[in-house]
């Protein structure tokens, strides 16, 4: 019986991984991390990027959504074994898996988002989150009436501390007397996927007087945004443009253009200009930014947008220095 179940599992896993069409010459693959491709945030941005590529070129791709820690390594290696030309790994947590797979399959190209893996066949794309967070921090301070704003992070890791620090500096830049209330959801990967906890944290921050909260917490953030809508307060989304989720309570979203990074990696790999090494995408490269659209145009006034754009120029020119948490 156990054997049968095990066989069944292997078969389903194989089906899930191998996906569709192999007919094309170019064979890309993507491994989403926990949270899944429809987390309305980080992974979904990557999904949008590869979907855009598929629409424009007609090239189909293999995909895998990691649901357990142990699957990461299997997924990356499986894609490489199935003759993927390029494997795109989404998320810092896949670094170890990518490193192993890249050593084992030196002819396969790997692109990892959000983490640096130093190997000759790996391209590492990292973002200057602190710059985007700085701008939304400014927006939060300008929109706040109480002079208190909040930050809710997902798992307590340096990457999220980087968001937090940039945000804090942005708040202080716009309003030196402001206070930032900071919370982390947890210390395990489960912290990315706990919207009720996010909602409790948000309630607690609003109760303490904050009226704008920036959530950098994956699917946990959905609980924060929901609470903002319930309480009639403001929230700032992350990674994808999340403004449409709760029009009227979304001040803006800190966009991390994972979609652009994924799309560019695929396009360059297809036309042969793909290069290994580290790519850093900041404000200057339009890799990060803040979202303005029809959903938040009443909340983010033109005056604020003008100030944010001015600060954006200053950061690009180096007139404003934003500290990178990793460099401290």
């Amino acid at each position, binding site marked *: 019986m156990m054997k049968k179940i095990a066989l069944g599992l292997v078969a389903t896993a194989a089906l899930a991984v191998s996906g569709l069409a192999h007919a094309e010459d170019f064979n890309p693959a993507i491994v989403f991390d926990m949270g899944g491709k*429809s987390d309305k945030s980080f992974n979904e941005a990557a999904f949008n990027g590869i979907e855009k590529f598929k629409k424009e070129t007609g090239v189909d791709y293999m995909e895998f959504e990691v*649901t357990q820690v142990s699957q990461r390594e299997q997924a990356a290696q499986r894609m490489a074994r199935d003759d993927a030309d390029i494997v795109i790994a989404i998320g810092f947590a896949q670094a170890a898996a990518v490193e192993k797979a890249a050593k084992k399959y030196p002819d396969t190209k790997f692109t990892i988002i959000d983490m640096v893996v130093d190997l000759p066949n790996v391209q590492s794309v990292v973002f200057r989150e602190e710059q985007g967070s700085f701008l939304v921090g400014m927006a939060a301070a300008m929109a706040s009436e109480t002079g208190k704003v909040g930050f809710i992070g997902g798992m307590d890791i340096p990457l999220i501390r980087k968001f937090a620090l940039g945000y804090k500096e942005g708040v202080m830049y716009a309003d030196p007397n402001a206070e930032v209330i*900071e919370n982390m959801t947890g210390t395990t990967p489960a912290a990315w996927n706990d919207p*009720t906890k996010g909602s409790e944290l948000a309630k607690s921050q609003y109760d303490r007087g904050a009226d704008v909260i920036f959530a950098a917490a994956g*699917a946990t953030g*959905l609980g924060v945004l*929901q609470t903002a809508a*319930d309480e009639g307060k403001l929230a700032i989304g992350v990674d994808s443009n999340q403004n449409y989720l709760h029009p009227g309570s979304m001040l803006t979203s800190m966009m991390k253009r994972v979609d652009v990074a994924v799309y560019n990696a695929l396009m360059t790999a297809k036309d042969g200009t793909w290069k290994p090494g580290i790519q850093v995408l900041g404000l200057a490269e339009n890799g990060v930014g803040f979202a303005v659209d029809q959903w938040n145009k009443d909340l983010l006034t033109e005056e604020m947008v003008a100030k944010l754009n001015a600060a954006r120029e200053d950061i690009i020119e180096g007139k404003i220095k934003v500290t990178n948490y990793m460099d401290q």
Partner: protein
Amino acid sequence: METFHIIILLMDATFRVATPLVLAALAGMFSERAGIVDIGLEGKMLGAAFAAAAVASVSGSAWVGLGAGIMASLALSALHAYACVTHKGNQVVSGMAINIVVAGLAPTLAYAWFQMGGQTPSLGGDARFRSIDLPFSDAAREIPVFGYIYADLISGHNILVYLAAAAVPICAWILYKSRFGLRIRAVGENPHAVDTAGISVDLLRYKALAVTGFLCGISGAYLSTAHGAGFIRDMTAGKGYLALAALIFGKWRPVPTLFACLLFAFTDAVQIRLQGVELPIVGVIPVQFIQALPYILTVLLLAGFVGKAHPPKAIGTPYIKER
């Protein structure tokens, strides 16, 4: 005033977090007092959370969702009863099996039905239980202390929180004052005596597990349609086990169990509040330590203050007539 305000807010959060624990612990109480170990609370809650969110998102009504959650939990409870009452199976194994099946099945069904990576769409409007303001809460806010407590602490929760509060005295009454409750307690202590009196042990245990399923259903629906807004993979996050711990902590009695649940919820609320706050003398405490606090406290309390807990005598053993 500032301290008072903080305490009120902490209590407010405590009520919200305690609600699913209280309902699940009461659910477990009926099952365990009737002599059936129920570690399947977690799975039943998760199943109910999924059914409630899925049906609420399709029908647009939180009440229909609640009904579906209760039905799902009742079905799982019936499965548990069928395995360990009718077929005298091992109760721990059956409960664990339910947990594992639901943990896999719910996201799979969600994936198949909604194509959103194992989640249901997020719920809004009438598909969620909204917080309700009790009458006169705005006027009462002006009255110092008591009015403030009424307006900020007692008013402004959703209906399921009040339901959980009402469930404690109702369950206590059923268990200690009604004929049904007497028989439940008897069947958990000495099923042979119950059988000798001409009452069907199996039927009683089925009934007890139906009550368990009903309460667990409300608890699960609370997670996905009242406290949260949609189903997410593994969203119970161990609350079923925590409720079971509270039940043992409360020595299988309704009121002490309620306090155990409140204590667990309170440590969670404090944990959220203490993060990044500068305390006198010690300064800022690391997040990791703060987050371990509820567990440390639980271990200390369980080890030091609870004393000997007497489980129902016949718990865990299937009833076989001709022994």
